[in-house]
């Protein structure tokens, strides 16, 4: 890169250092805006992905409610239990469950009972309302991971979610009175469920999980379930979903169940986050366009100021391509230096934004978070070259005689 044109370009930038620095500043801001937004978006996706990955590969079957299923769990009859009134028709029967089990085999199908209930933790504590799940004890280890204690085998035991345990100072061995004034009995906490975050099947972080038998006895629920969760270990969730829908919803006008594929939902969520990231990055891109206009303006000024010089060059034997190269080098120097500085500063900006908005910076130095930085740098360089191209082309195509006469 030791051609005379490279040398002239470098020296011209040095000669007009303030002007060149301001142009670089525009590019720096553009790259920081794009890359920092990209880092934030990417970190957001990673964080959500971390939270939701544990609920992947599930198919959730709920009674059809007319407007599509509710993947976050069906509503129920309130604190007093839910087997009466119109909600009775919003349950899956044991026959339905057995049918789902057969369709999903060899994958495990887990019947889920759910309600909201009053309860008290410890003597003299306030009455609270929390979600209760009833699950077959043999299926719990396949669905939930414990952070403390053990799975309850007896009917008087229960598991509690990590947030619920933290909020109410519950440890393994603590006792919880169920119902208003403990009318439905007392349960002993045998284990704390590891945090699951947002989930599509059972959201246990703020809930109590009891055995299916205890739930059915206490709430007089026989052979009817709020949902069935199929943990797909073999095959594709989409295939399981289709198979269940084909069996239950043969007539599209008389659907009996809503089937939700957790992977499909995850894909939708990722797509939504991706769209948001693209949108905010595009907003950052506007600043890059402004920077590009500034580069264009500066390059046009540079050409105008050096018309005579171009005329001399052409007259003593510089080809058009040589003149063009000289101006493109100038744009490239501004672009590369500005973009690299912008790339470095975008890491600082990305760190600050992640710390402030996501409360964590652990996703900053990951491959997917670094991609926006590389993209920002490349985009900055491309914008500079693109904006320098027309002025360079114009300079190269000046009439040498007119250029020589220029004062």
């Amino acid at each position: 890169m030791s051609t005379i044109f490279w040398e002239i370009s470098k020296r011209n930038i040095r000669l007009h250092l303030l002007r060149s620095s301001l142009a670089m500043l525009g590019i720096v801001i553009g790259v920081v805006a794009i890359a920092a937004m990209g880092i934030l978006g990417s970190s957001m996706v990673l964080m959500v992905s971390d939270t939701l990955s544990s609920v992947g590969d599930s198919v959730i079957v709920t009674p059809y409610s007319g407007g599509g299923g509710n993947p976050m769990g069906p509503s129920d009859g309130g604190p007093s239990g839910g087997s009466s009134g119109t909600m009775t028709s919003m349950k899956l029967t044991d026959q339905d469950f057995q049918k789902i089990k057969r369709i999903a085999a060899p994958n495990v199908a887990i019947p889920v009972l759910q309600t909201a209930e009053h309860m008290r933790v410890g003597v003299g504590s306030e009455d609270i309302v929390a979600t209760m799940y009833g699950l077959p004890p043999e299926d719990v280890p396949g669905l939930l991971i414990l952070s403390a204690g053990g799975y309850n085998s007896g009917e008087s035991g229960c598991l509690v979610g990590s947030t619920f345990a933290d909020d109410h100072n519950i440890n393994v061995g603590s006792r919880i009175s169920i119902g208003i004034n403990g009318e439905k009995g007392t349960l002993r906490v045998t284990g704390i469920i590891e945090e699951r975050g947002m989930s599509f099947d059972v959201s246990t972080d703020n809930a109590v999980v009891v055995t299916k038998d205890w739930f059915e006895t206490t709430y007089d629920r026989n052979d009817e379930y709020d949902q069935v969760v199929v943990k797909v270990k073999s095959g594709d969730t989409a295939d399981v979903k289709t198979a269940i829908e084909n069996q239950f919803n043969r007539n599209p006008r008389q659907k009996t169940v809503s089937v939700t594929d957790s992977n499909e939902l995850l894909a939708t969520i990722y797509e939504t986050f991706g769209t948001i990231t693209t949108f905010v990055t595009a907003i950052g891109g506007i600043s890059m366009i402004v920077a590009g206009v500034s580069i264009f303006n500066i390059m046009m000024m540079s050409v105008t100021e050096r018309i005579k010089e171009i005329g001399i060059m052409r007259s003593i034997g510089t080809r058009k391509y040589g003149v063009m190269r000289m101006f493109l080098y100038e744009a490239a120097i501004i672009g590369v230096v500005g973009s690299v500085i912008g790339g470095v500063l975008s890491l600082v900006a990305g760190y600050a934004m992640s710390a402030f908005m996501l409360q964590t910076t652990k996703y900053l130095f990951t491959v997917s978070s670094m991609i926006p930085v590389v993209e920002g740098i490349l985009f900055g360089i491309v914008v500079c070259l693109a904006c320098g191209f027309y002025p360079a082309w114009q300079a190269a195509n000046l009439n040498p005689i007119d250029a020589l006469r220029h004062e």
Partner: protein
Amino acid sequence: MQPVIQFSDVTKIYPLRAGDVTALDHISFEVERGEFIAVMGPSGSGKSTLLNLMGCLDTPTSGDIFIGGSRVRDMSDDQLTDLRRDRIGFIFQYFNLFPLLNVIENVNFPLMLKSGTVVDPKKALEVLRAVQLEEELYTHTSLELSGGQQQRVAIARALINNPDILLCDEPTGNLDSRTGKSIMQLMTDLNKKGSTIIVITHDPMVAEYTKRTIRIEDGRIAS
């Protein structure tokens, strides 16, 4: 022997809104190797047009121009550019050095165009000595030189590629008479060593140094 420059019935017309202007009207002449020619004439006579055509910066409306036997009309822009670089040396009234480059870089510029990279300054030093420029000025930029010194650098740049022709446009027009004389003496010396030199001027003092004078009036050769 083949002429260095041959003009054959050359006409140059500039189309303007107010009407066409004929700058050169059916001009024919030849320049032999080793000649030292002054082209003289009043303002607007067509001197600059003639210089531009000889320097391959412009093309004729009709007629043919041959440089070293090659017909200019048949050449592409790149070929004409290379011809200017390799066979023609330009010396301008206002020196036209590159202010961002020092003396040696300015002189080496045509060589660097040819090689595409940095070249050995040996030849530049040789030419600079030939034009009698003080050595302590070699690393200075053109802005740090006097008019006479700048013109010597410009002559050195024009000579660096051993051109067939030196085309000079009022080379002393921006110099005091003493410096102008020394520059013309330098050109005389170069001509004695074999350089073909064509000087566009309206200064009779400059014409006195040349061996032949072409007078142009109203786009025609008067004598």
